[in-house]
């Protein structure tokens, strides 16, 4: 593969919203920068609005060393580091305005409740949802998908019946696969799987063929956490809705790198994690279309999700409260909102253009190393790169890189069915964040060359 394009970079170049910003990065030809380009100069390439040196200064973690070397953090698809704004929002919550939410009448309770509901409104705006009531706070993408699998898939009114079908794709993370497998086993439903083509893109013709009048749920990731493939969610939503099914989108890898608009995507559910969008761990959100959430059954019971409780029976609160039993992760929601504000202020388009440039450079540099093979050649890709070094196991690659201060992920990336289709036990994955530099791409390249020497 020669020149992967970042989806949003491509969109920006094609005149989508935000294209007014000079998209120098996205249009750049993959080339070789002179090694040792200063970070500031490297940052200038993202366009005048994107000040990489300033961005890096916002992340205290980036100042630390690993094994006596500067940290090069290229494991952003696993989790991202946090800007000071998020750290301060969390400690500020505990320091100045913490109480339980939705319960007390006292001043602090109202302040905390207000802050959390404003956070919900921030998430609504980030996803382009119509109403804050369509945003359910959860622990993360995994819990969001499980919530749909229980509240909708097993709901009193909406639940699957024997012979119904669920359609997933072979590139799903286990968290968008196993919940559906369990649901299908329990309900005697059928799980069908959309295959990939040779480039690592979804076979949309097969998707069309696999949909049947019995298909109730289609679950697809927007960005593959192994291949980086960006799936055409809006197109898929059209196909799915024509057959009367609902579309669940795993946005874990997309939310940090693409502008997400659930109205434009046309999906019914959208899940993402806070910790991957530079927010805290243990918080995330599920968007659900209002009519669907209203039909769904509660999945966890406890305080805060009820209307009235009698020993003979209980009626439940309307969404989103119905799906938020118990005292929630209050500081997490507030930290998440701070992270989304941070991203929005930088501009998702600028971030996508910059990450597209990093990806393009890394792809060009790594694929030029003899014995290195990139995994996945989708035409639209975002943020991450899986690769193999001939004759060297990915775990050994990652260990040598770690010795040089470079954090990457090696393994099956919680996508074993995909690895089986690719006929690979594991890959090494470098994944980029908004603070990575072209110098770090050069460091990665040099380190992979070092791996070749060690195991020659």
């Amino acid at each position: 593969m020669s020149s992967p394009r970042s989806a949003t970079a491509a969109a920006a170049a094609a005149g989508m919203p935000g294209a007014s910003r000079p998209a120098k990065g996205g249009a750049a030809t993959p080339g070789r920068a002179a090694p040792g380009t200063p970070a500031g100069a490297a940052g200038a390439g993202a366009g005048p609005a994107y000040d990489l040196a300033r961005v890096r200064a916002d992340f205290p973690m980036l100042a630390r060393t690993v094994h006596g070397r500067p940290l090069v953090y290229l494991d952003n698809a696993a989790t991202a580091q946090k800007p000071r704004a998020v750290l301060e929002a969390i400690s500020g919550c505990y320091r100045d305005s913490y109480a339980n939410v939705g319960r007390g009448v006292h001043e602090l309770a109202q302040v905390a409740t207000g802050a959390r509901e404003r956070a919900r409104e921030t998430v609504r705006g980030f996803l382009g949802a119509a109403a804050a009531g369509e945003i359910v706070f959860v622990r993360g993408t995994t819990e969001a998908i499980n919530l749909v699998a229980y509240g909708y898939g097993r709901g009193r009114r909406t639940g699957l019946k024997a012979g119904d079908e669920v359609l997933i794709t072979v590139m799903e993370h286990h968290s968008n696969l196993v919940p559906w497998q369990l649901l299908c086993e329990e309900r005697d439903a059928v799980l069908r799987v959309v295959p990939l083509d040779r480039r690592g893109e979804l076979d949309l013709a097969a998707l069309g063929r696999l949909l049947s009048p019995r298909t109730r749920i289609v679950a697809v990731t927007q960005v593959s956490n192994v291949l980086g493939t960006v799936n055409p969610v809006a197109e898929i939503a059209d196909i799915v809705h024509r057959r009367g099914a609902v579309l669940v989108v795993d946005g874990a890898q997309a939310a940090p790198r693409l502008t997400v608009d659930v109205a434009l995507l046309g999906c019914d559910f959208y899940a993402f994690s806070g910790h991957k969008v530079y927010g805290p761990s243990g918080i995330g959100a599920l968007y659900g279309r209002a009519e669907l959430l209203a039909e769904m059954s509660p999945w966890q019971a406890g305080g805060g999700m009820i209307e009235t409780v009698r020993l003979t029976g209980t009626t439940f609160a309307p969404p989103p409260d119905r799906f938020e039993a118990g005292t929630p992760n209050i500081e997490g929601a507030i930290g998440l909102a701070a992270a989304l504000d941070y991203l929005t202020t930088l501009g998702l388009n600028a971030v996508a253009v910059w990450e597209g440039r990093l990806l393009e450079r890394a792809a060009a540099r790594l694929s030029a190393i003899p014995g290195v093979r990139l995994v996945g050649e989708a035409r639209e890709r975002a943020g991450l790169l899986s690769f193999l070094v001939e004759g060297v196991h990915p775990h050994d690659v990652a260990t040598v890189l770690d010795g040089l201060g470079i954090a990457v992920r090696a393994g099956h990336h919680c996508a074993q069915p995909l690895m089986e289709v690719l006929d690979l036990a594991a890959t090494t994955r470098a994944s980029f964040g908004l603070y990575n530099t072209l110098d770090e791409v050069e460091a990665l390249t040099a380190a992979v060359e070092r791996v070749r020497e060690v195991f020659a």
Partner: protein
Amino acid sequence: MSGGFGGLQELYGEVILDHNRHPRNFGPLPGANHHAVGDNPLCGDRVAIHLRVDDERIEEIRFEGVGCAISTASASMMTEALSGKSLAEAQELFDRFHALLTKPAAADAPDLGKLAAFAGVREFPMRVKCATLAWHALQSALAAPAAPPAPPPPKVAERA
């Protein structure tokens, strides 16, 4: 490899790199009467151990599978170390090998021979599982009752 960055030089010493490049006793074992497959769910590594045990003694031992340099070299060196050993000696060797990987340096067991090359793994707790994968498979192979000679060997992927 130059420079001891992050303990890597000790982890990937010459002996380990050599066994990774040229694994000994690699392949199926006709006439084997004990088998087991070890999986490392973390990285997808998989190793199959085949043994011919006669009168409480390991007459022959071979392995197959895919794995990282640490697990491949460990399996290879395990087969060399155990060939001809009694089952009691094998267990005792594993106990000392395990101590080498997990106990402080002062507790180094003597007489580990070439297996002492794995001392560097101690600095990489995430890789202890790689170094012990073949040994754990060995234990399951010996724990199961002897199988008749030459059943179909457990399916594992070819070594790349």
